[in-house]
């Protein structure tokens, strides 16, 4: 399934605007939430093809959103999830998150163009389930 709709959960205004702008220009339908609680509500209320999560977020951390979505039960089985963060987690927390996501990216090491290329690569993979 080709990715079309994206939920972007990011509290940094500059970074959020930058990615939302690029993704929209690339033709994606993007919703942007700036706090974790709103991000979780949006993820539950609407079916997105891709959710992009920061970790350090106000109200609710990205790791907690991930647990809520893919903890006991996978509430978003058809959705791809990318963690996009500059936060240096300890190995255990990072491994735990990597287990439930399709990509774990360091913001400082990629650019909007690279991210869009990567989303294109995700499109080529077989459906999650």
């Amino acid at each position: 399934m080709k990715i079309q709709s994206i939920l972007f959960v990011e509290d940094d205004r500059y970074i959020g605007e930058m990615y939302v702008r690029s993704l929209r220009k690339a033709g994606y339908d993007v919703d942007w939430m700036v706090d974790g609680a709103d991000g979780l509500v949006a993820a539950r209320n609407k079916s997105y093809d891709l959710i992009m999560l920061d970790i350090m977020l106000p109200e609710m951390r990205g790791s907690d959103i991930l647990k809520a979505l893919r903890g006991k039960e996978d509430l978003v089985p058809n959705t791809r999830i990318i963690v996009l963060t500059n936060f240096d987690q300890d190995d255990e927390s990072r491994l735990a998150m990597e287990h439930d996501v399709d990509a774990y990216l360091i913001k400082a090491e990629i650019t909007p163009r690279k991210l869009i290329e990567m989303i294109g690569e995700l499109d080529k993979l077989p459906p999650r389930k």
Partner: protein
Amino acid sequence: MATIKHDQMVKDYWNSYQSRAWINLIIWSLGISFVVMVILFLSAIIKFDLIALGVSFLILAVVFLSLKLLVFEILLVPLHQLADALTHVSDEPNAVEPPHPNSKHARANGLAPLLELIYKLGANYDPGVKQSAKQSEVEKGLHHSRSSVVICSENGEVTFASHAAPIMTDPKGRIRLKLQFSDSDSLEKWASQVSADDVRAEKNWHRIASDPVGVEDRRIFDIAASYEKGSEAPFVIMLIDQTDSYQPEDDQLDFIAFAAHELRGPVTVIRGYLDVLLQELDGNLSNDHRQLFDRLAVSANRLSGYIANILNASRYDQRHMRIQLVELSVGSVYGLIKDDMELRASIQNRLLAVDIADNLPTVAADASTLSEVLSNLIDNALKYSHDGGTVTVKATASDQFVQVDIIDQGIGMPPSVVANLFHKFYRSHRSRETVSGSGIGLYISKAIIESCGGTIDVRSKEGIGTTISFTLPTYSSVADKLVESNHSNQEILLTNRGGWIQNHNKYRG
């Protein structure tokens, strides 16, 4: 301390004794002959006649001398052999032919067991009473020093350690050295290799810590180890405590790592907006403006690379760096940095010639860290090349490895610089003056390549150029070592402590 003065050498004893014995023998023979002759004269057995007296005296002297010579020879041959044996086992330089315990003489006169005992005591008691006292002084001195000496047996067990040595008791109750070597270049690995292959060997290590960063009383050593097969002390390890020199730099790295982490946010914004601006303004920019944007992009990308190097070096020192070994091609990893490298070459007026065939075997590596290694090595080659020069990146396959060469025809390096190139924070005097850098890129590149099971080395000639080559194991050569994963998309994670851990599907940016 009182010392006993010995003027006479052991080796001189026999000659001196022999001379004295001859003189005594002659004097006593003449004396006894004279006395016997006087008794014979007084008892009127011989008459007073000068000729008769002279002849009698000579006959008596010859008879007594002959008898004593016979006794002398019988007694002195064993003494001579004992003296030679003692001279041989003494620590004096000498040319004495040691008597063999199994010789005809030794067996005939029953001296064989004595000679064997002398040789045995000599072998066990060397270097002698006087040197034992010196040895004891050396030991005392060692125990007062911050640097230390450790002696290990062939099986790696510590048999002697001066007080300052970093040692610990392992779970089996054996005393071991407590040092944080990298898995690929450890004392243990070297020891097992030389004890299998060599009679004598030596090796040095620099900047080896007793504990990970953050542990109290952590010390940092330069280490020199030597090995001699069959010796009573096969492994002698000297540990020079360099904590005072190295610790400030390590503390500095901790601080820099903290600062680098804080820089990630602004760098994300700078790189991102440059990327956005370039895409949106594309077509409307003059060549001049485009070049300015390119310079900004290259600088921002370099900054991002420095940050990654510093954070990885800090993680590596704390044994927290993780290397994920997955199946990938060198070409695909180069593809991740291709645009950036071409841009860097272009704004520095260098040519970048890349020859990485599509049909090379896949390797076991980690895309993110391998791209960091390639960036570091290519960036160095570009920086140290001449204006208009060419940097060649070439990948070739050999038996179980893929080798990547980064070749430049730049300024090159003298051997003294090459020897230190992979040390943390090392920057040659010349590069400090002319080229920007942190002195960490090659250190972390080596750590990454070796953590993947590969090797890295450098060949350079001053004024001619430099070739840095690294190898990585082909995926097929190590696939059977990788633990089977329950997940559909297998990946293996290798910590730099050497443990294999299963991991799950993911991408790295």
